[in-house]
């Protein structure tokens, strides 16, 4: 039962944009990639590199706004460079545990928001929620067209 009760986080990384430009409202999950034409091709389902996985894994270290912004920029940059498409956001297990309110960040459209089991996740992230709770995936990429791509710990992805 426990694994369905872990709190979750949604990270909406932004691509490399002018720092300081506010894209969203605090408390809302927004993705800077929204509205951007998504180039979903076979290349998107290539393995995620160890460097990218390492970058994503450092989210918990983003304890302040500056760190969160740098984190999001590096993730978005890595995606844009490797796959030519930036996800709307990533849904992953939150390893911080309660209380997680301390880690809600908002800077330049970058929002890290933690969810309790009963808190509803906004669309389209809600479809990735139960996948992210599984130990089988490191995190789940959510694209603006609703595509969810689970990423396994070894960097392989599950094709839709």
């Amino acid at each position, binding site marked *: *039962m*426990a*694994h*369905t*009760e872990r709190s979750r986080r949604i990270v909406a990384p932004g691509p490399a944009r002018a720092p300081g430009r506010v894209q969203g409202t605090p408390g809302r999950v927004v993705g800077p990639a929204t509205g951007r034409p998504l180039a979903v091709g076979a290349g998107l389902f290539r393995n995620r590199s160890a460097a990218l996985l390492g970058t994503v894994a450092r989210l918990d270290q983003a304890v302040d706004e500056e760190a969160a912004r740098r984190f999001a920029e590096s993730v978005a940059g890595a995606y844009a460079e490797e796959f030519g498409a930036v996800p709307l956001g990533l849904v992953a297990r939150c390893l911080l545990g309660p209380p997680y309110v301390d880690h809600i960040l908002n800077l330049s459209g970058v929002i890290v928001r933690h969810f309790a*089991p*009963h808190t509803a996740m906004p669309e389209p992230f809600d*479809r*990735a*929620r*139960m*996948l992210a*709770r*599984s130990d*089988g995936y490191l995190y789940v990429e959510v694209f603006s067209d609703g595509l*969810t791509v*689970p990423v396994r710990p070894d960097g392989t992805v*599950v*094709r*839709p």
Partner: protein
Amino acid sequence: MNQVDPLLHRKLQEVGNLVSHLGEQVRQVSGQVAGVDTRQQQAQTELQQLRADFLAYVQQAGRASVVQRAETRIGVIKDDLDHEFGHHKTVRRTAVGMLQAFDTGLVTEETVRGVSEELMIQTPRYWLAPALVALASWAADDPTLCSRAVDEAFRRSPAHTSLLFTLVLRRQGRQEAAHRWLRHYLLVQDPAALGREFAVILEALAQGAFGPAGRELLATTLDQWQRTLLDDTAARDRQVALWRAEIDSLAAPTARADHPRLAQLSPQWPQLDAILGKARAQQALLDRYRAVTEREPGPSTRLEDAVDDILDQLVGAYDTDELPLRRDLELQHAVVAHDGDMDAARRAYDARAAAFEQTLDYLTVQSASALAPETIGTSPATRRLAVAACREWLDEAQGGFTRDYRAALPPAVEARFDSTHSVAGTMFHLPPWTGSFSDGLPAMEHSLDAHWEQHAKSFLDSLAYPLRRHLLILGASVLAVLLVVGQISWPVALVAAGLLALVRGLLLQQQHTKAQALHRSARQALHQAKRDSLQQLRAAGAELTDWYESYRAADAVDADCRAFITSLSAAAPGGSPFEGRVVDRPAPAAPAAPAPAGLGKDSHR
């Protein structure tokens, strides 16, 4: 005045008695109505049970009848096959018998020739008959007849004939000629529309029957085909869908018996049950394909036997003409195997139906060899290689299957109580209560307890005897008697009021005692029902914990499955039991004459 008093007193007495009697009758009627209500509820429950039993019986009877019809149909189809195509069997048996006769040299050329010519006449349109004449004339050193017979066989079925002579020449050690036939066969094949006989090529590859040169040629051609076909995303998706159907079919049956309380209480049980069944498919998948790949194919002691087995498959494979009957036969077998469940039978049949198409693309041949070797006629050795060759599709199908059931996991599992109880001759309906297990069992128990208490209290209150009201009425009646009769005579009024108070008071006391007993029993019954509910809730909570443990254990097999699928890439090349083996024995004794040039494919063309 004295005459009025007794009269009034009597009338009052009569009115009091009538009221009391009426009250008694109303109570009796009320009790009877409650009894009728209870009996009606019981009758309804029994009726529902009867209906469910009846429906189950109808379903079972329907299935039994479907199975019976399918069994009858199987018999009819087999008869039809025997009647329509039985004579092909004779030719098939003769072909292998003839090759063995060549080996041993126990049969005279005349006999072989006589038999082959007889079969040629008896089986018009069948490609194998002229091929036998060609073999017999080869043995008899008659190049003209041999050439004409090869022409005829090739006209009837170029692919089958090419393969037959490839294998026969290979068996007889004529490597050059065998290689030429094989190359020509491969060149004219369309990888998107291969004949059913192509499974034999995979079989020969698995058995190493074509020798190093043939293996090289095949490997190059097949690799090229695979690359060409995989450029088409739709073709790839079709293969993944085939494997997905295979994995879906491995889902375990319901685990309701292990989680009866949870199944009864949780609205999410159907989802949970389906998810556990699917998670358990991981182990079934692993077991099934591990057994396929770990099984050591028992190689024949002689390579000739292996080639004979492949020849058996080539000549034994049913013809395109037989396909409609074979398809029907397969469907009827599926109906019997699924105990008359037409939907399940249709699903199982659909997963294998591809193997019954007249032409198949190369990828489908591979998948069919891995998924259902018996439908396409390949051996376990070929299946082993085919599974390895299909690893990418298996990987994708398994990944998608796992993702889907993981995503379907309900975020919160709830328990729901909505029950009706017969309490003290009255029906008590507990309004619906829903709680989520993610709140923790203590919080749920507390909430359910409070829900019970709240509704039981209002129910018990409605059962309470209205003593206070009755006492007030009695007091008012006594006062009225005193006022009315007191105007006439105070002593009479006092006596009448006293009598009224005494009689009515005794009645009230009796009724109150009865009502208290009823109230006590109702409270006890509701208390017991509440305890049962709480116990059910705890049991459901424990079963949910068990369910999660079972699910986690079943889901964890995903890692083993993935490791197994990854390990298949190492098994892909060189899994043949006859890897590198060639027939290097001297020319066979029976056909004393050297092979006529006519058997070489190039000269034939």
